[in-house]
């Protein structure tokens, strides 16, 4: 391993924003209490402030405005070593979902998640990405999907869904106004959600289609730290939308997939995009507001889990609540909820990392406790990654709460 490559990446990615974070940290440790992994284990190593120490070390050694002085007087921090970086792998991948909750507790307002992203970029330069994430990120780059859903396979999946759920799955429809994306999790594991999206759009009279050129919303490059993969993924979607002439790109129930195409894509590609990007729930809430989507509420008590990448990192809070209030007669808010909601513990790729399994399950106890305290019979979400984390964890704990996808509920309760 050439540790210098990681250090070079740390330095390259440290601009005014990252540097101001690294400079402002007073090591008060108040971020610890906001982190589910720290709270679940009580291990001080899991405090968010620990996670960016190698980055801070590299910054102070070579990019800090005072670093020439430190070098001149022989007081420059020692170079980050190969061993240190290896030791940090679990802190950067296993015990950080980049949920951003720690920022809310930080008196300096440091966005530690963005520092972890820079750390991941450096780690990926020297092959320190957990093998599960590497495998999926590279599969996404090479096949179009992290689990190998190629364009050819997509056609077959859509055909199967058409037959099984009695819905038309449009693919490569010329000049469709809306390009619909989905994540491989839905293509393979949560096909009822895939079918539900298609049914809703058809019933609303939307001119929509999937594209075999760009159909994968998830972006594992944003988990591994490989910016080139992240760029490739959004490039495919962008080109697909432009070829189609789509006015809108609809991101599915995938928190980071939404952030990837909504907030990251223009910056990764270095240009503005000629279409609007909406999360499916944002779109449904808009239809609801315009009176085009009417719902029949169910007499149930349910709560809503804010996916971190959609809420805290994406800015979508009100729309899902607006839907929930019309989907059930007894909507119950989690405490804390909204922007301070606890992460499910599986985001940022954590749920697929085998070595993180125990920690993820421990952190999920916080989530279970939150849901239990609402007294609701189940929890609704709008992120397939969260859904997978809930499913896997519920199975482990034999937890009996209903886990629902918002899109499926909308499809079920739509009034024509």
């Amino acid at each position, binding site marked *: 391993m050439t540790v210098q490559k990681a250090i070079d990446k740390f330095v390259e990615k440290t601009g005014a924003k990252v540097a101001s974070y690294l*400079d402002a940290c007073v090591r008060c440790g108040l971020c610890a209490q906001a982190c589910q992994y720290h709270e679940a284990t009580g291990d001080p190593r899991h405090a968010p402030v620990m996670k960016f120490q190698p980055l801070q070390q590299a910054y102070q050694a070579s990019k800090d405005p005072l670093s020439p002085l430190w070098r001149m007087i022989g007081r420059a921090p020692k170079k980050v070593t190969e061993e240190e970086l290896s030791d940090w792998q679990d802190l950067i991948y296993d015990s950080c979902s980049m949920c951003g909750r720690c920022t809310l507790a930080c008196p*300096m307002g440091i966005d530690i998640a963005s520092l972890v992203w820079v750390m991941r970029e450096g780690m990926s330069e020297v092959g320190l990405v957990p093998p599960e994430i590497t495998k999926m990120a590279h599969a996404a780059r090479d096949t179009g999907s992290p689990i190998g859903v190629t364009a050819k396979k997509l056609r077959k999946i859509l055909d199967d869904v058409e037959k099984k759920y009695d819905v038309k799955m449009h693919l490569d429809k010329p000049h469709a106004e809306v390009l619909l994306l989905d994540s491989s999790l839905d293509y393979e594991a949560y096909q009822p959600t895939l079918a539900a999206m298609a049914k809703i759009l058809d019933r609303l009279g939307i001119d929509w289609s999937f594209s075999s050129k760009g159909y994968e919303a998830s972006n594992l490059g944003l988990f591994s730290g490989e910016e080139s993969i992240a760029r490739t993924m959004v490039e495919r979607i962008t080109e697909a939308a432009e070829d189609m002439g789509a006015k809108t790109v609809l991101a599915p129930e995938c928190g980071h997939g939404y952030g990837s195409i909504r907030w990251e894509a223009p910056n990764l590609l270095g240009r503005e995009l000629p279409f609007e990007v909406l999360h499916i729930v944002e779109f449904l809430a808009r239809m609801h507001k315009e009176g085009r989507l009417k719902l029949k509420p169910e007499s149930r008590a349910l709560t809503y889990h804010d996916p971190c990448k959609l809420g805290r990192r994406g800015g979508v809070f009100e729309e899902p609540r607006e839907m929930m209030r019309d989907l059930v007669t007894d909507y119950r808010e989690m405490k804390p909820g909204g922007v*301070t909601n606890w992460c499910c513990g599986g985001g940022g790729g954590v749920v697929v990392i085998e070595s993180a399994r125990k920690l993820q399950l421990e952190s999920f106890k916080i989530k279970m406790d939150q849901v239990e305290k609402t007294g609701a019979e189940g929890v609704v979400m709008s992120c397939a990654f969260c859904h997978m984390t809930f499913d896997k964890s519920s199975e482990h704990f034999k937890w009996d709460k209903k886990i629902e996808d918002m899109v499926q509920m909308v499809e079920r309760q739509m009034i024509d």
Partner: protein
Amino acid sequence: MGFVGFVEGPLFYIAAAIFALAAAWRVFGLIRMGRKPDISPPKGSATAGFIKGNLRHFLPRGMFARRTWIHIVGGYAFHLGLFVLFFFGAFHIDFIKQYLGISWTPLPRWGFILASEIAFAGLIVLWVRRFSDPVMRLISDRDDHIGTWLTFLVMLTGCLALQQSHEVLRGIHMLFVDIWLIYFPFSRLMHAFTFVLSRGHTGATYGRKGMNP
């Protein structure tokens, strides 16, 4: 030139110059690094977010304050106490008037003493947490302790000089002030300036996303 004349004269000028130049170098160095403009279509204002982010983080969220209330109370006590005693202590106002020609109404003596006690209590709480809290113990380094102790000594010698019974006590206070000024821009004490940038960057990012957490 005697000891007091030296620490209030040449050494103070040197210390103040180092403080101003190095602090400015560091802040402008941070700003000069630049950042790529965010070209994703905004849902809200980055500028408003910058301001809101700065204001919002002055107040802790209740849920985070519950368990670490002692740290938060200590932090407020120290920072507010220090602000009051520095800007409203009669001797400090006289000192500032001597150099800048401006002055304002000072606190009465009892107010100064109260502010000092509050600041001392806060600083001690923060320092004790450096080794009593497992996270702070793990992440604290020499700089954190030096910064705390220097600030403590500046405040302590300031109180000793309050009676003005011996000129040399004021000289000792000024000596520590000079050392503190020289140390400040090379340490984490710089957070007194850089917090604006840090909170601002986060606030601007959130502001563009149409929220202000």
